[in-house]
């Protein structure tokens, strides 16, 4: 790719008859005289790109360039960005978006299982969250289907690999993946005539210090699809309708998927972008290598909104070298010493969220717009006994995208691109799917012991076709926690709503508890959307109830995560005995655990026996 880009650049320069006329200035400008400065502080080509600014022909000038188009790529980022931005680069090297440790591990769990080693995209030594050195294996050495799947499928969204081919999902590698603006077609559209219309480049050479939501969308539009859900978009059934100008529509994105409109996340509707909640440590890492994304992420809803019992925490900035001060230098209104900065769940200061005049305020990092955060601590809706175990987004998600039945076929008779090795090798993956839905969504206990939405993660059925066409595996379900079972994963859809799921809506619909679409027969709950490989197990759930007996037949991924047990299910459903009369969250009976024996007291007996 890089070689071809160089060749194209050379040819283009010859065609445009580049001439070098001024020996006193950088010869770069002879061809690229209108190229945007990356930023006022990045106004010299050679500092970043290298090359010979005195050379009078393109070949010599470009021969020693880093990249050459993208000096921030991992091959050259040490000499390019790393010379000035050492702190950031060292963090990025260990961020989950660069290591993809979680992605690789999850693929392993879906296919052959773990093999005792922890893999990252490049391997090597890093430091774990406890500060101890840790050695990772390179995914190139993961010589099984898990490694193949990652390298040929998932690695397209690795921050260390560029993707210039996928419409709507194109991005650079390295620092430029987030800090240069790419458009849907990966085509330069800036002022420089030499580069104009060239594919495989950012839309402009003007760097974006603070990435917008579109930057994040270039990768976070698959799997959990959080960036598109956040914006109120849905790649649902891929029906390609309604059409747009006679093409698939209304919007198209990578993989020939169409996007339709759903209610956006309340934060997006208010004008907030991804980086307004997510700290640079969430995205670029904090210097430690984590096994999974959820261990690296430090933002939580409670940070700004408080929990039922605890208001948001803040800490006053006192030192001049505090990270919040440094990070906010590029914001419309930089933070200043003495501000009371709100703390993340890991106890670090946000750079754009602060406490002032009795309220929590969030400043849009790019927009400068101030948003007052509603603190819910102590409100009746948030002090219901038992609800302390709920993640905020268990109630406050408009939707939670669920992809049921991921049927993956690996065909050894075909060849596929290995994006890590950079070559085509034997083995090609393809996918089909069963069904997609948004609402309702199932709930289960996550790794924090809290009740959270869960989504299939994954319901993978594996078929392997050998080179001679025979199938060595057919719709195989891998073992997880010792037995063949499908998996759901705790999930925050990023489609938050101000209005929550209603009390009777959640307690009265066992679909929220993981029973899938269903009907109720006595005290049995029967699923109606059935897994192809079973006579009775729902595809869109993980629980069944047969004459009061609750059985879980799918796992919830992550340590300590699990479906609700029979006792919890019964407790949740028992609330329906109270809800018809006690329908308001502020009702005093919800301040403490519900006493179902009250139904037998004289008052209730009298009320319930009335004609």
């Amino acid at each position, binding site marked *: 790719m890089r070689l071809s880009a160089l060749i194209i650049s050379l040819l283009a320069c010859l065609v445009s008859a580049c001439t070098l006329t001024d020996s006193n200035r950088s010869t770069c400008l002879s061809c690229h005289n209108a190229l945007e400065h990356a930023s006022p502080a990045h106004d010299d080509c050679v500092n970043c790109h290298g090359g010979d600014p005195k050379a009078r022909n393109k070949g010599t000038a470009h021969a020693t360039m880093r990249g050459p188009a993208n000096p921030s790529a991992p091959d050259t980022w040490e000499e390019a960005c790393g010379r000035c931005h050492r702190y950031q680069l060292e963090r990025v090297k260990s961020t989950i978006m660069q290591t993809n440790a979680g992605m690789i591990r999850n693929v392993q769990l879906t296919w052959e299982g773990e093999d005792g080693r922890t893999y990252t995209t490049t391997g090597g030594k890093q430091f774990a969250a406890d500060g101890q050195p840790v050695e990772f294996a390179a995914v190139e050495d993961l010589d099984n289907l898990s490694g193949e799947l990652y390298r040929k499928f998932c690695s397209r969204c690795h921050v260390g690999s560029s993707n210039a081919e996928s419409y709507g999902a194109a991005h650079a590698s390295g620092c430029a993946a987030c800090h240069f603006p790419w458009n849907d077609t990966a085509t330069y559209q800036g002022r420089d005539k030499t580069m104009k219309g060239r594919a495989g480049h950012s839309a402009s050479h003007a760097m974006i210090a603070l990435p917008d939501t579109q930057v994040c969308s270039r990768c976070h539009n698959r799997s959990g699809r959080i960036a598109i859900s956040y914006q109120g978009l849905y790649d*649902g059934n891929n*029906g390609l*309708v309604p*059409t747009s100008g*006679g093409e698939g529509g209304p919007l198209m994105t990578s993989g020939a998927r169409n996007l339709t*409109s759903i209610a956006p996340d309340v934060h997006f509707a208010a004008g907030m972008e991804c980086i307004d909640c997510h700290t640079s440590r969430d995205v670029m890492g904090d210097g430690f290598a984590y096994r999974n994304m959820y261990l690296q992420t430090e933002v939580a809803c409670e940070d700004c909104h408080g929990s039922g019992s605890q208001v948001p925490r803040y800490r006053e900035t006192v030192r001049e070298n505090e990270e919040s001060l440094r990070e906010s230098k590029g914001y419309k209104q930089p933070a200043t010493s003495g501000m009371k900065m709100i703390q993340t769940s890991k106890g670090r200061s946000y750079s754009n969220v602060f406490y002032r005049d009795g309220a929590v305020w969030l400043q849009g990092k790019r927009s400068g717009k101030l948003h007052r955060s509603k603190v819910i601590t102590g409100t009746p809706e948030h002090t219901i006994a038992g609800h302390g175990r709920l993640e905020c987004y268990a109630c406050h998600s408009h939707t939670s995208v669920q992809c049921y039945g991921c049927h993956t076929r690996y065909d050894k008779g075909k060849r596929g691109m290995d994006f890590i090795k950079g070559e085509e090798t034997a083995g090609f993956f393809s996918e089909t799917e069963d069904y997609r839905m948004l609402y309702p969504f199932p709930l289960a206990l996550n790794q924090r012991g809290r009740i959270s939405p869960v989504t299939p993660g994954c319901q993978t059925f594996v078929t392997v076709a050998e080179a001679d066409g025979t199938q060595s595996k057919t719709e195989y379900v891998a073992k997880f926690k010792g037995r063949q079972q499908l998996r759901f994963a705790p999930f925050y859809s990023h489609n938050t709503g101000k209005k929550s799921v209603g009390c009777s809506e959640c307690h009265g619909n066992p679909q929220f508890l993981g029973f899938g679409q269903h009907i109720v027969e006595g005290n049995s709950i029967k699923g109606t*959307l059935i897994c192809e490989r079973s006579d009775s197990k729902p595809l869109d759930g993980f629980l069944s109830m047969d004459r009061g007996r609750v059985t879980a037949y799918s796992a919830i991924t992550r340590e300590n995560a699990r479906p609700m047990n029979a006792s919890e299910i*019964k407790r949740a459903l028992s609330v329906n005995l109270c809800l*018809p009369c006690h329908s308001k969250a502020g009702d005093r009976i919800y301040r403490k655990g519900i006493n179902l024996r009250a139904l037998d007291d004289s008052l209730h007996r009298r009320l319930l026996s009335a004609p």
Partner: protein
Amino acid sequence: MHWMTPYIAGFCLLLSSEAMAAHGGLVCGSCHRPPGGSVVTAVRAASSLADGCVVCHRGYGRIFDQSMAHRKGEKQFVQRSYARVDSGFWEKNCSSCHLKSCLDCHDEGEPKKPTVAACQRCHKGYYTGWDYSGRAPREDNMRYQRGLAINDETFLKMLPDVHSRAGLTCGDCHSMSSLSQGKKSSKGCIDCHKPDLKILEHRISVHMERLECYACHSAWGAQEYATFFLRFRDPKMKEDFDLKAGPSEDYLRSSYLRKQDAPPLGINDRGRISPIRPLFIAYYTDIMSARNGGPENTLLVAEWRAWFPHTVQRGSVTCERCHDNPARFLLEPEAGRIFQLKKDRLQLESFWVQEGQRMVNGSFMSANRYLRMSSKSPAYTKAYIEKWKTLLNHVENSSRP
């Protein structure tokens, strides 16, 4: 050529011994000679319809006067929708399921009562019939065209109707006699089932008076929201649409959203509350015209019909799925809206809002009636608690067969 007749007949008998077993003792001409004719004919000949059969099966020829043959309802729908933009739409897309002869259902070579599979050769996909065996249509994109298939048509595996699991066939409720008379069925639910008044829902008189049994007992129903027919004047233009091929070279079909959960409810032509579904919210795009700046996604009609999903189970959904669920009656409040149709230029506020849509064979439930229905009267509260106690405590059958 008449001299060949006995030889042809003899050859047929050799090939079709089962037919002979079912019609033992008859001579060939009994079936293969139309009244007044002398030439041996194929029984299935379109021109003869049922001539070869009705000599004995008197009266059943009237089935060709009924909906499966004339298909007036469907033709009228096309006339008020897609025929407005393409006069040949019916022939291109709808003509394959048209009853032409007895052997369409009574298999040639083994003429006997039609099997469920025989009925489902036409009553498939989005149309009632497949659901009886636990099949719902899949999404139209090829990504979803996978898995189990019947006659090369894939389907989502659903819970089959309880009657199907018990071995009943279509003909057990839809007798030949009833179909010939233009009736939908020969038996209704209460012809076989006496509602058990020990069952809570059956004790509520309003339920028994105003609901079809299948309003509660249909476990699921296939629903297609926004049906699109995309017209291609040039077949090459189809390459950009990875959708399942249909019967017509000129068209591809797709939809905005499919569901197969408990369907919405409305009032049917008997004045009873019944499941309803879109049939169809019909959109049309002429791809070539749209690429030249012409109109696209034209909403032709937004029609709903009351229907009987053949997905009966002993159980039902819980109370609040009707009494606390305005969207189920197409009275969705704006605050609860997920799909933003206007943003996508679909010309409707929501699929679950009555405005801009109509019921063809009944009516939508009025907002006032829903308000009355959803008010939590003491009787409702009492029944509601009893229902949940039942779920949490013990098992009951919903009706006595």
